[in-house]
Structures are given as structure tokens and as C-alpha cells.
């Protein structure tokens, strides 16, 4: 609650214009080559008889940060969960349409879901470090996926913790329980845990919304630094945050038959020159 207020107070348009790194406007994806890594076609997700997401077609570009914005319940999280087949975990959930990542059809029934989920990491709204020591949080998944050598494990541990800016803070207490860390540290640990598996895509479901403003700022800066190295899809309710860190934005809205995609485009275009009235109303704070 306080976080949202705080963020809004600090986001006058002039400051934002300076903070995000964009190339030439409307001339292709900023910061990287316009190469779609994830192609979603006519995706629908439903839970039992209840449709959550209807007919979404969307390309997600490699190495960029794509923000999914829109009001609660419009299917953003369902969209995200479909990308790593976490929808499989939910009883009664049906996914229809097509999702290709790097050319591979990930909705194929014979797909190695474990391999997919290593390739497509996910960060949740509520930090969920395991009730294990910090070190084991990162090493356990690595070992399970076949990395056994001590030297490799140690090297990966230090690298990913450094990547998320946690190494200096925790290097002397790696064997302390991860649940003793602060909320922001826990979330960064979760990101490190995902990075350790060397994914190419990171899905983030409101990664900052359960954190206090300062921790939220640190995590946000860290996510911004992932640009270029990882393809990041981030769900956020915080429009200022989306403006600051995203290259692309997709605006979802709740229609009577589940959520739909209203508009997709460069982040600056969505916020400054939306093509759709709904988008304009939402980003200006009049709706949603």
C-alpha cells in the first residue's frame, strides 16, 4: 500500500523520460535486435468453466523486458503461468492456443516440462525461499539437475549471488536459514536461485509488490540490470515501475469472457501515445 503511494509520488513524467534506456522510437525494439523469442498465438486459459484469458496473440522479444499491465483478475498471471506450464499444477486448468519458445512448441504433451522450466525461470509475488540454508536453496536445485562437482557449485553460488547483489550481504552466513533474511533479500535469493539454472527467460509475477519501498527499489534496479542477458516478462501493478524498467508493455483488460490483450507496443508508446481509449484511461489513472 505505502509502496504504491510512494512510487507514484516519485514518478513525474520528466524523471521517467530520463530513466529508461530506449533506442530510436518506433523503429524496433530498444536495446536489442527485434528478434521474437516467445511467440504466443490465440492463447486461452480457463479454470473449469471459468475463462481467465481469451485469445491472446503476442510476441516477446529476446533480451528485452516486457511488462504486463492491467487491473487485477485480467489474466496476467495465467498468461505468465502458461509460459512455463505451471498451469499443469492447477487442477482443472485448460490451456489452448499456441506458445513457441525459440521455435519449440511448449504446449506439446510429450514435452520435457522439467527442461522447459529450467529454461524459463519464474519469480513469485511472495518471496518463497525454501526452509533450507541460503547455500542449499541454490545448490539443491542444481544438484537435482545433475551438477555434482563442489567447484562448479561454489562458482555458480558466488556468481548468481553477486548478480543479484546479495553476495556481500550473505557470504559470511551462507549456512544460516534463508527464512531469516529480510523480504527483499529473500526475493533476490529467489531470483538468484532461478538464475543458477541458467535460464533464458525469467517470468516475474509482481516481484516487488510484497516488499517495502526500499527493498522494492533495490529489486527493481536489479531486474533492470538483467536486460540484455535475459528475456524478462514482468507482471506489475505499478505503472511507474513498468515505465522505468520495461522496453515493451502489454495492456490486459477484463472483458466479460475473461481477460484479453488490449494493446501491445513499446513501453513509451503505450504510456505516451496509447492507441486504445482503454489503455489511455488506464495509464492516466482514470480506470482500473
Amino acid at each position, binding site marked *: 500500500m505505502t509502496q504504491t503511494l510512494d512510487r507514484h509520488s516519485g514518478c513525474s513524467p520528466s524523471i521517467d523520460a530520463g530513466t529508461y534506456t530506449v533506442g530510436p522510437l518506433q523503429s524496433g525494439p530498444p536495446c536489442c535486435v527485434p528478434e521474437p523469442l516467445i511467440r504466443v498465438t490465440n492463447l486461452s486459459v480457463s479454470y473449469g468453466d471459468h475463462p481467465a484469458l481469451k485469445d491472446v496473440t503476442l510476441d516477446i522479444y529476446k533480451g528485452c523486458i516486457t511488462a504486463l499491465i492491467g487491473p487485477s483478475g485480467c489474466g496476467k498471471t495465467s498468461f505468465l503461468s502458461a509460459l512455463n506450464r505451471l498451469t499443469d499444477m492447477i487442477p482443472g486448468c485448460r490451456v489452448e492456443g499456441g506458445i513457441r519458445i525459440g521455435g519449440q512448441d511448449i504446449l506439446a504433451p510429450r514435452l*520435457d*516440462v*522439467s*527442461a522447459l522450466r*529450467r529454461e524459463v525461470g519464474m519469480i513469485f509475488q511472495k518471496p518463497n525461499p525454501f526452509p533450507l540454508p541460503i547455500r542449499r536453496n541454490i545448490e539443491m536445485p542444481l544438484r*537435482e*539437475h*545433475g*551438477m555434482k562437482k563442489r567447484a*562448479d557449485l561454489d562458482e*555458480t553460488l558466488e556468481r548468481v549471488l553477486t548478480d543479484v547483489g546479495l553476495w556481500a550481504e550473505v557470504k559470511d552466513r551462507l549456512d544460516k536459514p534463508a527464512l531469516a533474511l529480510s523480504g527483499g533479500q529473500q526475493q533476490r535469493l529467489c531470483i538468484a536461485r532461478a538464475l543458477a539454472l*541458467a535460464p533464458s527467460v525469467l517470468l516475474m509475477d509482481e516481484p516487488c509488490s510484497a516488499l517495502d519501498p526500499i527493498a522494492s527499489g533495490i529489486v527493481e534496479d536489479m531486474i533492470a540490470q538483467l536486460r540484455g542477458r535475459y528475456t524478462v516478462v514482468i507482471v506489475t501493478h505499478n505503472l511507474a515501475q513498468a515505465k522505468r524498467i520495461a522496453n515493451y508493455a502489454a495492456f490486459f483488460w477484463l472483458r466479460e469472457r475473461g481477460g484479453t490483450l488490449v494493446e501491445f507496443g513499446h513501453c513509451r508508446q503505450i504510456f505516451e501515445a496509447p492507441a486504445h481509449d482503454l489503455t489511455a484511461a488506464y495509464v492516466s489513472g482514470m480506470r482500473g
Partner: protein
Amino acid sequence: MIWSKHSISSPSRTDARLAGWLSIAAGLAAAVLVLIVLFLLHESWPVLNRIGWLRFLTDAAWHPSEGLFGLAPMLWATLASSTGALVLAGGLGVASALFCRFYAPPSAARPYRRMVTLLAGIPSVVFGLWGLTVLVPLIARWQPPGASLLAGILILTLMILPTVALTADAALAAVPKAYLHGAAALGMSRSGTILRVVLPAARSGIIAGLLLAAGRALGETMAVLMVAGNVVQTPHSLFDPVRTLTANIALEMDYATGEHRAGLFVSGLVLSGMIILLAVAALRFGGARSHV
């Protein structure tokens, strides 16, 4: 990628294998019940096949060696002792729960609840021992012989009271605080609130507890066996010695053979049938509560 994706067996395959093993184990666990029913039927078959169900109710007496298989006196004894215990334990148990929730000063409620939990953990054979050495002589001084339906009822009451008290306590705890505030806002007295708001709201939970307790009372063997006197007769007063179905099994199983043994298994079947019906009813009530 720094490790080979194909170096380990696919997790989904490990999962499938584990699920297979677990299903076998779960199947075995479920099979225990089937096995019990099958063996009860199998062992009772010789006598059921020859004389049928009805004679177990209509025969005048229980003399298996002479071909008389009347369970009725013991059935009455079982029903009488359980009903008596249920009435007493129902009142005392619900009152105990009310005491904990509404009447006891906080410093007393906790130890009292502890005490009831402890009471629940005392094994039936210890209740039997106490009843035999304390209660029975006491009743005998008043109305000999002492070992009687009354002794059975009192011991059973003590045994099932914690079941009633603890489930009623949980049911009372589940009554939304808003109801209490609402009643207080209307200026209702404590007794009015309890009788007209709290107890109706907790009704299904309390009834489920009573049904559970009834099942325990019907199925209890040792405590009743030790204090009720074990004479096969239909009770006509509280001071008559009686033998319940369960006690009959425990007493005669040692030496029973042939049709006698089969007759004991029939009484086991009858008993299980009654108790399972109660348990299913209790689940219904418990389930209903969780949906409200």
C-alpha cells in the same frame, strides 16, 4: 548449458515411478478394510449359512453349545450402557466446553482443557481397573452386587466425556466472534447468548462429537467388561449385572470353537455395522459444518 539435460532420468519418470509405488501402498491401506470385512464374513459364514441372520435376534438365549444364538440381551445391554453414558457425557461434556469458553477465568480454562486432554489419553483398561476397585465396591455397599449396568454407564461416561468436551470446545471456538459481538450489542444476557446464539451455531459440530462419542461407547470393550458384571441378561434395572456384545467377544473368544466362534464373529459384524453407520453420520455432520 553447463550440464547435460539428458544425463539424468527425466523427473516426470521418477515421479511416475514413485506414484506407482505410492499407489500400491495406498491400495494396501485401503485393502485392510476389505480384508477385515472379508474375514469377518468368512469366519461367520458357517453359522450364518446354517441358521441365517434372524435367529441371532429371535433366539431366547445365548447358549452357542446348545445351538441358541440370541444376541438380544447383550444388544440391549450395549444399547442401554451406551445411551446412558451418552446422556450423561453429553450434558457434562457440553457444560465442560461452555465452562472453558465462557465461564472459567482464563487462569482456569487452560489447565481445565489440559485436564480433559489428559483424561482422553487414559487407556480404557485403567478406567476399568479404577472402576473395579473403587466404583464397584461403592455401588455394592448401596445395591449389591455392584458390578452392574450403572457401573458400566458411569465408567463409559468418564471415557467418552473428553470426546464430547473437546469436539464441543472446537465447535464453540468456530462460532464467529461477530455473532457474540452482535448478541452483546443487542444487550443479550450471557445465558441468552449461549442458548440462543452460540449453541445453535455450534450445533452440527456438537452433534458430530456426540455421534463420535456414541461410536466409542458402543465399541468399548475392556472398561465395561471389567465393571459390568458380565451376566448375559436383559437389564431391568440399573443395578443388574449385564454383558455387552464387546465383552462377550472378549470373554469367550479364548475357548470358542466351531459355530460358537462363528457366532462371535457375527456379533463383531453387527457391532461394526452399527458403529460404521454412526461414524458415517458423524462425518456427514462434521462435513456439513465445514461448509457453513
